[in-house]
């Protein structure tokens, strides 16, 4: 492949992100200025997003052998970039009142975004691994960014060890698959599998896939590989948690969808069975453990385990409807999660994040706007109508019903009910009588920019719940 045959315009988003992080780095070298670097970051993310809207719609292109830039990839890239933008908007106020060296955070954020954006367009093990590592390594430091907090350090180290561990699994799995198939390209692997599928898949290949599932499972934080999730969610700064919950996991989901689609995963009972087990286990474990938590960040962590379980339903259903459902659900899920962690970020002070459920007592009566946003986000997570989360869940169930995955659908419905319990718990606390005034001193003054971001997120989330047609058409347009 010669470089000249690549249309530079098609890979421009990636290049822009790299350039932005370089500029950010250079600007630190010249002068540390939080405002400036914040401006550079948001500006470049916004630029990439606008570029994607204007140029990239319905533009399919491959960069052999690594990347495939198709509608699905472009759509998710746009989503990732937009989410990073929202996260960086929420980060400004959060870091402004904390760390003295806050500028490097934005470089890491841009790099992590780049990694995730690479993941969603990769069609080859090499690009997969490169994207994943760019994402993970940036995340290690982001998780541990608040060095003075013990929990943040602990979470960082935990994430480092487990992510490295899972990368090793993934690499080993890829090596085995490569040894058997002689290819690292998703499509070629699919062709190979197709050719041998009559006699059953070779053991080496199954072993390779099993290893890969372990690796991917860790990154996704699905049961039984979920153990790191609550600790990391709890320890990481709230905006970073939002980033992990959305951009990092979402990128991985999309990669999985792509890989699964290319190798025709639905045709191999072994693979379907293992993902079914993972999906059911994630739903139950996530929801049941969430019930017992009193820490809002941990509740959201466990709920994210369950939500990935839900997503796997559409993923297993496959087909056009399945991919649509995944795309829609990711949009709703991204909006909702960034919103929810944004609320946590906005309420946090220098000492600690507002993560105990008591911090939210009576919130509705002292900060009605924030409480309303949080309530909307929680209801969306619970899948209540008028919210994007409801349409997302409806989409998932619809795709499951059309593929007749009855067991998964019933489990999903049961779990939605279990999930209600802990979402409602937080809402009930917010609507309770306020505590004494000393507790309210925890709240710092509100930053306008955070509030605006949150309001925009909630309006979008509710808009997609009330009038999802626009988004559905957009997705179908991209997936064509």
């Amino acid at each position, binding site marked *: 492949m010669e470089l000249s045959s690549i249309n530079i315009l098609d890979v421009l988003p990636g290049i822009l992100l790299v350039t932005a992080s370089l500029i950010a780095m250079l600007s630190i070298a010249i002068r540390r200025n939080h405002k400036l670097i914040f401006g550079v970051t948001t500006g470049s993310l916004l630029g990439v997003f606008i570029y994607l809207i204007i140029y990239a719609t319905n533009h399919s292109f491959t960069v052999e052998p690594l990347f495939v830039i198709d509608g699905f990839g472009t759509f998710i890239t746009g989503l990732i970039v937009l989410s990073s933008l929202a996260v960086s908007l929420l980060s400004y106020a959060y870091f402004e009142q904390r760390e003295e060296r806050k500028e490097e955070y934005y470089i890491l954020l841009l790099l992590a975004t780049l990694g995730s954006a690479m993941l969603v367009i990769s069609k080859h093990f090499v690009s997969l691994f490169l994207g994943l590592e760019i994402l993970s390594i940036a995340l290690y430091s982001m998780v541990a960014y608040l060095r003075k907090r013990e929990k943040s350090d602990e979470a960082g180290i935990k994430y480092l060890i487990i992510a490295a561990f899972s990368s090793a699994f993934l690499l080993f799995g890829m090596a085995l698959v490569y040894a058997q198939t002689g290819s690292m390209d998703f499509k070629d692997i699919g062709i190979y599998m197709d050719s041998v599928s009559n006699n059953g898949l070779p053991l080496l290949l199954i072993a390779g896939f099993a290893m890969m599932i372990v690796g991917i499972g860790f990154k996704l934080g699905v049961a039984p590989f979920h153990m790191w999730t609550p600790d990391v969610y709890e320890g990481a700064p709230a905006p970073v948690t939002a980033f992990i919950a959305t951009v990092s996991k979402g990128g991985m989901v999309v990669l999985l969808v792509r890989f699964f689609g290319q190798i025709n995963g639905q045709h191999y009972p072994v693979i379907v069975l293992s993902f079914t087990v993972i999906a059911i286990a994630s739903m139950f474990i996530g929801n049941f453990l969430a019930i017992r938590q009193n820490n809002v960040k941990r509740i959201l962590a466990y709920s994210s385990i369950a939500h990935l379980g839900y997503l796997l339903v559409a993923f297993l259903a496959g087909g056009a409807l399945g991919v649509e459902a995944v795309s829609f659900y990711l949009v709703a899920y991204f909006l909702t999660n960034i919103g929810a962690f944004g609320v946590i970020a906005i309420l946090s002070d220098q000492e600690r994040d507002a993560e105990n459920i008591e911090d939210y007592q009576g919130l509705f009566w002292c900060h009605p706007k924030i409480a309303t946003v949080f309530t909307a986000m929680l209801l969306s997570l619970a899948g209540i109508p*008028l919210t994007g989360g409801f349409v997302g869940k*409806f989409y998932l169930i619809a795709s499951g*019903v059309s593929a007749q995955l009855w067991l998964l659908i019933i489990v999903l419905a*049961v779990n939605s*009910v279990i999930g*209600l319990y802990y979402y409602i718990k937080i809402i009930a606390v917010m609507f309770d009588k306020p505590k004494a005034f000393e507790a309210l001193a925890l709240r710092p003054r509100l930053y306008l920019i955070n509030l605006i971001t949150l309001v925009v997120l909630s309006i979008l989330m509710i808009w997609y719940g009330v009038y999802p*047609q626009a988004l559905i058409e957009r997705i179908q347009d991209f997936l064509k």
Partner: protein
Amino acid sequence: MILLLFIVILMVAGVLAWIVADQSPVLARWISLAALFANLLLTIFIWFNNPVVDSPNPWIAQFSVSWIPSFGISFSLALDGLSLLMLMLTFFLGIFAVLISWKEIQERVGFFHFNLLWVLAGITGVFLTMDLFLFYFFWEVMLIPMYFLIGIWGHENRRYAAYKFFIFTQASGLLMLLAILSLYFIHGGQTGFFTFDYFQLLKTTMDASTARWLMLGFLAAFIVKLPVVPFHTWLPDAHSQAPTAGSLILAGLLLKTGAYGLIRFVIPLFPTAALELAPYAMLLGVIGILYGAILAFAQTDLKRLVAYTSVSHMGFVILGVFAFNELAMQGVVMQMITHGISTGALFILAGALYERIHTRDITSMGGFWAKAPFMGTVGLVFVLASLGLPGLGNFVAEFLTLIGTWQSAPVLTIFATIGIVAATAYSLRIMQKVFLGKAPDKMIPDLSLREKFILVPMIVSIIWLGLFPQPVMNTVKKLIINQISNEQIITSNAVNPDEKINGIK
């Protein structure tokens, strides 16, 4: 268009009330009242302008715009006689819900009225929608505000009650969603035309076992809401913990959505499966009648007592619906309306008593007639209504239901009739414990003008319904005849109809 107006008025007024309440709580109350009045007048206007004409089309008005075309979902509303009656009941009771909260609710008035109006908007939507997705949507929309009504303004154990209410109804609602979706895909698979439209889905053909499963999905939602006995446990908690307006709406309207769902969806969509189920459903109805009555007799908490009487009265609804004949169905419709009014009034009285003596415990009441004769008289009227005294609406309802069911299941009818005797016992017990006996020393103020303004129209309407029920029955006649003739066709085609209908002897 006018149908959309019903919902929009309520939703807009709700938001307005929330906004203005910061400046003036009274204005929020007036806005809510005005919105409900406007809607009530609209329904009455429609009722008078569309006398029971003999046109073959039972639909008075229809409205439909495309909403999510990719899924074949449209914002489709339609009004027939049953919907019209239910809407009138909704706005009639809605007005009283606002009035009764005038003094009781002093905290967070704006948010209260927002929730109140949105529950009513959800209920209105449920009674109007002809798109199954939209139906589920409204079904849920009425849930969240109700949760807040109970959870924020309720009594001491409100949080538990609110949780229980929410989780019960959500869980059953999700089962209905699954059934709706399956129906959608089955219909789409057959015709290649994917839609949630009620009229299209009516034409779906299914094999017997599929129909049975799907019907159970729908049934789950409706019998929890109704409630039918093994699934009723949310009801006493929710009713007794809710503020008076909440209890009024729960008993008067939310329970009726379950009955409405049975009539509108379960039976037309799954006629054969419903026929198979009928004996069991009727049995559950009778169990509910007796069980509710016995438990009502054992309660000491006045609101809980009234809540259990609802369980008992709602037993007649499911009994009558599954009797599949005209008289019983007319009885059911009457029961939906009269029970809404009479039980609503009893909850209002319980609320009025609570405001005065700050307890719902009937053992610490007694002799209030001497202190508050007007209240006593009103209490007597509704207690008599509840026990089914001829001349009051409830008598017509239960009598028709019993005559109707006698034709299909005489043994069950006998047991159901025993339930009416039990109703006499628990109803008179209310009268005796609360209003008769030794008068207390403390002052019990009689009903205020505002309370009279609520209760007197309710008395008038319950007497009117008892003496002149014909207009109500004419309004729903067409719907009932359609349904019954439908069922009869199926019955005559069935292999051994007598055994099935009279299965339980």
